[in-house]
């Protein structure tokens, strides 16, 4: 008794082609929202603010937003690379402060060149140490950079006499030119973000970051220099943080010691709001830029309208915002996972 049942079907040509199913609309939409949601929300908020909040759209206000956040944006830039590679760097806030103190000190003792090279060099070195602890000693980035946060702040306080000495950049120093005015900070940030985009999208290093964050085991099997890349990304993040701190010192004309606390958290928030996945493997620099600006605009608006609550109100809003964004992001990536 035959119990074999099949459906008849036309023969396939030998060597025929496989055509993958066409882009489903859902896939395209969720991809768009995920990758450019941050920019979209920023655009909406800016438009609403321009119409609804008096004085928002004035050049003076926009300028102060851009200039005020140009250097902390560099922290988010470095953080983007780290998070895409699947890691995290909690030490950038402390390195920002350290960079400022070193720069001020350097400008007094060594001149403008030293004022820039010293902080960048030291931060790069610390980043390298963290990178090696993560790759060689195989410790978790969260813990290593958490220790970095503590240790670097301690280091900064040690060289500034427990934070009591605020080194002032000499009046005549050429170092002051790096961060003065409004164009220089903005252009510095724009140029660095531009270079960052090129590095991320068009170099093997950048592609390796995506691969390592997307699937570390696959990256290893595909022959990528995984450990070297992972360590290097912390050098990059540290250098940018140190540079940002140095430029900020140039702008403030001194190495302020109680600065930078919590900056790493804002950087992380900006990166995530910009669409980079915390788990790694996907993200963009433009998204981060949108995230930075979005947080800055919110803070600006709150500063104007809810000024009696001060920065804590913007904290509360940022917190809620971050929560919403992350929930949406997770929901979207779950949608995308369905074939």
């Amino acid at each position: 008794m035959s119990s074999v049942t099949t459906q008849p079907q036309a023969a396939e040509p030998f060597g025929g082609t496989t055509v993958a199913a066409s882009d489903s609309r859902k896939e395209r939409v969720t991809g768009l929202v995920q990758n450019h949601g941050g920019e979209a929300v920023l655009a909406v908020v800016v438009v609403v603010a321009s119409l609804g909040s008096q004085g928002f759209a004035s050049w003076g206000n926009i300028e102060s937003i851009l200039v005020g956040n140009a250097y902390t944006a560099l922290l988010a830039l470095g953080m983007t690379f780290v998070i895409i590679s699947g890691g995290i760097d909690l030490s950038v806030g402390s390195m920002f402060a350290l960079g400022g103190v070193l720069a001020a000190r350097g400008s007094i003792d060594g001149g403008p060149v030293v004022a820039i090279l010293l902080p960048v060099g030291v931060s790069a070195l610390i980043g390298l140490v963290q990178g090696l602890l993560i790759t060689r000693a195989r410790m978790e980035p969260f813990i290593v950079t958490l220790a970095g946060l503590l240790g670097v702040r301690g280091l900064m306080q040690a060289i500034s006499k427990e934070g009591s000495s605020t080194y002032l950049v000499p009046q005549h120093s050429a170092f002051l030119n790096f961060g003065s005015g409004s164009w220089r900070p903005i252009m510095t940030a724009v140029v660095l973000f531009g270079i960052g985009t090129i590095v991320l999208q068009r170099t093997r290093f950048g592609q390796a970051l995506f691969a390592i964050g997307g699937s570390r085991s696959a990256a290893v099997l595909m022959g990528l220099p995984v450990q070297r890349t992972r360590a290097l990304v912390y050098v990059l993040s540290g250098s940018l943080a140190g540079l940002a701190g140095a430029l900020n010192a140039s702008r403030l004309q001194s190495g302020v010691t109680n600065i930078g606390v919590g900056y790493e958290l804002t950087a992380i928030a900006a990166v995530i709001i910009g669409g980079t996945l915390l788990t790694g493997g996907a993200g963009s620099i433009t998204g981060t830029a949108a995230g930075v600006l979005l947080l800055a605009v919110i803070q600006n608006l709150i500063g104007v309208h809810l000024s009696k609550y001060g920065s804590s109100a913007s904290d509360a809003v940022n917190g809620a915002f971050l929560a919403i964004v992350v929930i949406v992001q997770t929901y979207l990536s779950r949608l995308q996972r369905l074939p």
Partner: protein
Amino acid sequence: MENVLEVDHVVKRFPGVVALDRVSFSLQPGEVHALVGENGAGKSTLIKVMTGVYKADAGEVRYAGKPVAFDSPSAAQQAGISTIYQEVNLVPLMSVARNLYLNREPRRFGLIDSRRMRQQARGVLRQFGVDVNVSRPLRSLGLGAQQMVAIARAVQIDARVVIMDEPTSSLEKREVETLFRVIKQLREAGIAIVYVSHRLDELYKICDRVTVMRDGVVVGGGLDMRGLDRLRLVSMMLGRDVVDVKRHGVTAFDADHEIEGEPVLRVRGLTRRHQLHNISLDIRPGEVVGLGGLLGSGRSETARAIVGALGLDSGTVEVDGAVVRRRSTAASIKAGAVMLPEDRKAEGIIPNLSVRENIVLAALPRLSKFGLVSRAKQDEIVDFFIKRLRIKASSPDQHVGELSGGNQQKVLLARWMCLHPKVLLLDEPTRGIDVGAKAEVQGHIDDLAREGLGVLLISSELDELVEGSDRVLVLKDGHVIGHLAGDDVSEENLMEVLAAGPGAGDDIDD
């Protein structure tokens, strides 16, 4: 002719097991050399030693005549050994083009030339019969297409040796033909190929020589395929007499079940967009129903949907006459339908917990009063199952992560058995475990069926599926395309149904 790759008495040990015991293997340029053996025989370990993932504890590996010790896959690749893995080891989130050229991207003025990369990718993939938008993320492609991308990547590298580990497990018939064409081209160019597979038909079609492994030892090295009788090959793999294999079959199954009564599992109209289309089946007490199909056909999804681990758009599941209303694993367990998952590392064992804790995990609600676990009841169950399933562990407190694959699988089996289920769904129950444990597990499945459980068996090993099941349902792309019963359950018939079913076609966008 000088060997391009030679493995000389290599030993590789892991805690508790000798994976490779003085294994020797030789590969000549321009040959296709089959590497066969059951799960746990050591094939994967041998490949990992050859490609730099593992370092040998003793012995030597020689490449082009010179001793080498690759310390990473990257080093092996640079030397010219390229590997295609059974699981697609590419980056799902990145685009097809980027995956194809990762770490080898075409550059202009030092920067990656994205346009040229995409153009080249389109051209290369078309040769492999894949015509897609190469800017899409890799994971948006079907498994077969993904594997073709992996294959294309592997052969692009200037390689002298290409190792293919179960390359056809996700491929359609015409994709397999394409692969064979590629292999012939490689062979003509003097490139040596190591072909690992347990699909004997393919091996006889394309391979020149074969090396057979069993339990970490080479039992037949570099044998000429042409003169080798198929039955003899199988008996070498299993370590059993040729006559024995012919008479009793390849597995330890003795599918002589008494089946009677109303179905203990009744599944109707399971549907989930893009994955399952109106799947229905019945299982009666004492019956073993097999689910056959290629990778990606929806077998695991069906099982998961039945036990509530996968959401459904529509469909009903009835256990012992009672409809399971809530779609959750807890509800399914309560109703009496449980599942042994395919990936025991990801979804099965809790590695840092003890054998004891792993076994009682699902039964915790039944073993505790007011939220406190009753130690006595727990120990009773644990001791019983350790004995019955012959779980080899230093003590019930040993961490499950330290046990061998076979024993881990037994622990998982115990976890489900101590719930006294009515229906047991098994997804690849003997994957990745050694021959001895495999036979034991197959024997236990028979016992369970004899005790009146309804069993759903999913297995990629055709002989296991055929010999263990009373009936086989064949799935393809989430549809039931065939049904074999009684004497018609055979490997030939199964493959015929698979080949003749409706093609993959374009997704019906509903």
